[in-house]
């Protein structure tokens, strides 16, 4: 019995380690396959042509990624800027102002919003948001539309993450603050905020990743013109939209170019993650 159960333990260890390695290998596989599939672009077109390209006309052999990277980054950052204060306000309300029943309802709604397919958001953006913006400034399909829509889409995720981080605070710290006679804003500033700063960083970096990665909704509202926008009313194309728009019809080097776009997305996203780690580490430093 004794020996056998220690053998079981050893086997268990290997199984679990295997699971771990498999999870790691997925990222490796993704990077590898995406890079591998984008190789033909550089074999057929050449590095210099790709990075020196002045426009994106894949069928005419021009592959310029810069504006799309910019489009992705701008729309994602804008969305986060919009979503942060609202998410912040909502999480405040959830913890300090609203009754339990209301809180329950709001959480359920937020949960549903997270699960709503992006197509539904996009459809709303296309038929409501874009015409609305168009009233001020044509064409309506614009960076602004993308920012607003993405902001709305990441709002539930962000709120729920902040909500969870508030809930995780040690009750006794809050009680201690109350015992010291601190009122709500001070409790918030002195107890809740310092405790949740790392979580805020995590929420922002994850939402940023979500916004960068959103595809279906952005296609419908962003206008998809490959250009560097000069105002928020100019249409832009994001890397993700580019893939979804052209993938179904792409052949050969065009397809490779799209895979390279995906590769750029992975790189971009890794940068966001590294940024998240750094801010979190800095936050922990402040905390200590």
């Amino acid at each position, binding site marked *: 019995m004794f020996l056998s159960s*220690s053998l*079981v*333990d050893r086997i*268990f*260890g290997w199984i*679990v380690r*295997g*699971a*771990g*390695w498999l*999870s790691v290998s*997925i*990222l490796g596989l*993704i990077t590898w*396959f995406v890079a*591998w599939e984008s190789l033909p672009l550089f074999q057929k077109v050449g590095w210099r042509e790709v990075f020196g390209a002045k426009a994106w006309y894949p069928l005419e052999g021009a592959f310029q990624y810069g504006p799309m990277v910019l489009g992705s980054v701008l729309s994602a950052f804008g969305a986060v800027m919009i979503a942060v204060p*609202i*998410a*912040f*306000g*909502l999480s405040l*309300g959830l913890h300090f*102002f*609203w009754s339990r029943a209301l809180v329950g309802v*709001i959480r359920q*709604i937020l949960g549903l*919003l997270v*699960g*709503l*397919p992006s*197509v539904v958001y996009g*459809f*709303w953006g296309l038929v409501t948001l874009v015409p609305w913006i168009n009233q001020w400034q044509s064409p309506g399909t614009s960076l602004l539309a993308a920012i607003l829509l993405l902001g*709305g889409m990441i*709002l539930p995720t962000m709120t729920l993450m902040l909500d969870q981080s508030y809930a995780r605070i040690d009750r006794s710290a809050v009680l201690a603050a109350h015992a010291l006679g601190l009122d709500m*804003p*001070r409790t*918030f500033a*002195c107890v809740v905020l310092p405790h949740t700063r790392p979580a805020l960083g995590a929420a922002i970096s*994850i939402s940023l*990743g*979500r916004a960068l*990665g959103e*595809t*279906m909704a952005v296609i419908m509202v962003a206008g998809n013109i490959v250009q560097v926008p000069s105002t928020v009313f100019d249409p832009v194309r994001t890397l*993700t939209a580019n*893939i*979804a728009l052209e*993938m179904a019809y792409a052949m050969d080097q065009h397809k490779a170019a*799209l*895979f390279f776009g*995906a590769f750029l*997305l*992975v790189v971009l*996203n*890794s940068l*966001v*993650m590294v940024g*998240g*780690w750094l801010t979190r580490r800095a936050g922990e430093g402040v905390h200590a």
Partner: protein
Amino acid sequence: MLERLPVLQRWVGDTRLLTGVYWGLAWGSLGLLGYWVMQLGLPIFREGWVGISWGFLAEEPLRSGRAGGIGSILLATAWIVGICLMTALPLSLGTAILFRQFQREAPRLIVLIRHCLDVLAGVPSIVFGLFGYAFFCQFMGLGFSILAGGLTLACMILPVMIRVLEESLAAVPLAYEWGAVSLGLSRVGILLNLLLPRALPGLIGAIIIGLGRAFAETAALLFTSGYVDRWPQSVMDSGRALSVHVYDLTMNVPGGERSAYASALALVLTLLIINTIALACLHILQRRTPANAALSLGRSR
């Protein structure tokens, strides 16, 4: 932390004002959210309610989805999500256990996995779609199939499931494990007796989150499980997921709006039902397990 208090007092002499600002921010945000939910949700319910019926849920789509129902699509979705969960759950559970129980044995592996997962969690779903297309469909030769779609989704929801499972395992107090280890008990025993029973709510939570993600996903499935909207006969058939169906109806099919709304409503209702069932499960679990009851008592004390 409290030493900051005087500074704060100097900033805002009267905190009633600040409370008011917070209050306003909270209600203002709620107002925005409410307005937006109305904007988003009302059309779905209003238009969708007309189109949805038992027949609609059971039939095969006709004329590209303008008529008929979404029966075959629901089935394909269920298969895709099922395969996805069946693959992702053991994998993520294993990894979460590795994090909890093998910290001493494999610290470097754990750090590596953590970083990889952080990156993986942010990889856009469309990249997963491309990867699935290149790896599962082409390299593994699965073609456009439910299997390929499910596996791609599994890769996609893996990080988030691991995160949730890990958190639920971490919520089990270390003291139990120490007690067990000091008695020389096996890891498997600790897992089965101490960790898993306590982490069961987390497990359910992970399944729900995974399900939600998988149901809502469009981009990753476009290039992997394909468009075919007929009854799938095996996992090697191409099958259209519900969210892809909604996408197709709104974007490719003239006059498909009504069905699109009805399908979207079906999707929302499915999510709602799953959430409710899960909540009920959690409720029952918390009431049934004496240990849990005792613990929550202990916590309140």
